[in-house]
């Protein structure tokens, strides 16, 4: 119940922001009869309508994660964001090994298999993608070797 309502409210706010942003789209002098604003308005209208339905007739509550689990999802999110930021400066192998070990540990909390999975995936995927498939990956940070 609450989840649907919260989502509905968030989406209404976002849709209003979307409309506001659409009002500032500049049109050039040689535009078509519809112009670049109308379709976004229509889309935002549909979102608001659907949000209202969700507010008024919410589905039964979803199973939301317990605090511990929410923490775990947050940790997974942090790992993925960190990985996305580090893969360019740090090369492929080290961030991949760390990130896959971390995710592996979250699924099955045993340190040794997780570390092995990380090492194996970090090197194995590098060999697969770089050597076998020839994608342009950098193994280590520049200047290490």
């Amino acid at each position, binding site marked *: 119940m609450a989840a649907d309502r919260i989502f509905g409210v968030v989406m209404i706010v976002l849709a209003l922001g979307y409309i506001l942003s659409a009002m500032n789209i500049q049109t050039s002098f040689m535009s078509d009869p519809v112009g670049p604003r109308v379709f976004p308005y229509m889309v935002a209208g549909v979102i608001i309508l659907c949000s209202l*339905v969700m507010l008024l007739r919410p589905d039964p509550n979803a199973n939301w994660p317990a605090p511990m689990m929410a923490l775990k999802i947050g940790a997974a999110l942090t790992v993925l964001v960190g990985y996305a930021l580090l893969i360019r400066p740090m090369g492929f192998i080290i961030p991949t090994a760390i990130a896959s070990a971390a*995710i592996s540990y979250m699924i099955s909390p045993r340190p040794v298999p997780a570390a092995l999975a990380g090492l194996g995936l970090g090197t194995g995927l590098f060999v697969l*993608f770089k050597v076998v498939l020839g994608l342009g990956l950098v193994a280590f940070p520049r200047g290490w070797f």
Partner: protein
Amino acid sequence: MDILSNLALGFSIALSPWTLFLALIGCFVGTIIGCLPGLGPSNGVALLIPISFSLGLDAISALVLLTSVYYGAMYGGRISSILLNIPGDEPAMMTTLDGYPMARQGRAGDALVISGVASFYGAVIATVGLMFLAPMLSRVAFQFGPAEYFALYMLAFCTLGGVGSNNQAKAAMAAAIGLGIAMIGLDKTTGMPRFTFGELHLMDGIDFLVAIVGLFAVAEVFHFIESHGKNSAIGVKLGKIRIPWGDLRKSQGAMARGTGIGFVAGILPGAGASLGSFLAYMAEKSVSKNRANFGKGAPEGVAAPEAGNNAAAGGALIPMLTLGVPGSGTTAVLLALLLTLNITPGPLLFTEKPDVVWSLIAALLIANIMLLVMNVPMVKVFVKILSVPSWVLLPGVTMVAFVGIYSLTGSSFDMLLMVAFGLLGWICRKLDIPTVPIILGILLGNAMEDNLRRAMVLSNGDWTYLFSSGISVALWTAAVLGFVAPMFLRRVLKKPPLPATESYDRD
């Protein structure tokens, strides 16, 4: 015969050693993807598009590789349904109903063979159907103007929302979110930036591959961590594989009916393979003489949904290729593939690029023969792969998702965006909001707006033009029906409950 000469052209391209090799790889990888729980045809193909694109494959090679993966995943889905009672992908859900009980009775091998043959039967007939129907439909599609295309997109969103989800408002919301995201970037007509907030990365819009990999693959990782991915140990022993001729003969009718129903369900926009296998199973259950055995390990109950979902996979290619409107999540992903390869599906595809279309069809036929060989005598290889533990598999999938996007765009911004889409996908799944309409919205949004605006240019701003031709009125009517009718039908057609894993596990 036009079709035969076209097909000969297709085979002349598709029978080269290189394409045969790609088809073999694709079938093998696809079957693995299909049988691994949590990875299905849509996220499997989504993961592989960026990689095959970075490999620099030409259009036909990439198409052969990834459609082989697509069909392979449709075949592979049944393996974990039968052995683990976990559908390898959504369309394989119905196969658990009789496949798992058969496996519990020590007939896992028989169930795998019957379902493999049924998959082959459904897929081949559907491919033949595709050869005949697609050129016909593309001739009709020639008469489509912008107003008709706009109505057609509405139809796709409405039926997808109506048939494919439990709550119309949420499905429509998802479609609108996707359309809203598609608006980001430069407006094609006026060249003005929209919703970019001065961010240079957003000028080109959001790459739909980033959204697809995020929503399908990364979201799965979050879901898996939360659901704790019950470690999938194989509960059923697989004996020597024999061919159960008797059961195959008995389930011939089931395969034929399943194929027909699945094929039609596949053609309908928005319905796709899940509905195909569902309807095929329900229909078979109501006409079969062996009715009492359904749910307890009836071979017909394995044959019908498998024939149905593979036939639907073939049928779903028809609207995707001829109209550019996908009918399901996986065909949406295949549409993304075509757009990445700079091939615009539509009626012109058949006249302007017959080599692409017909080599694709030839490749589908070849892939099916390879898959039959792989999935009947060699099924044990895949059963071995199923025992890869999830704590190796899931990190691997995540990393492949990142590698794909990284090698495609090389930007951290796009990888962060992918993670954000992953989170969105996880939240949507929690709230029971379908994600396929989001993808479809992102894919079709610009074309939909473009057609609306071109229609308005033609009519000089008169909105009634949208309903002015017979075809468009028919499409609008179908759209409204497709959105509204399921609300009433849902009460009549209840999904049967999954077989009781828990009670089996405890004994």
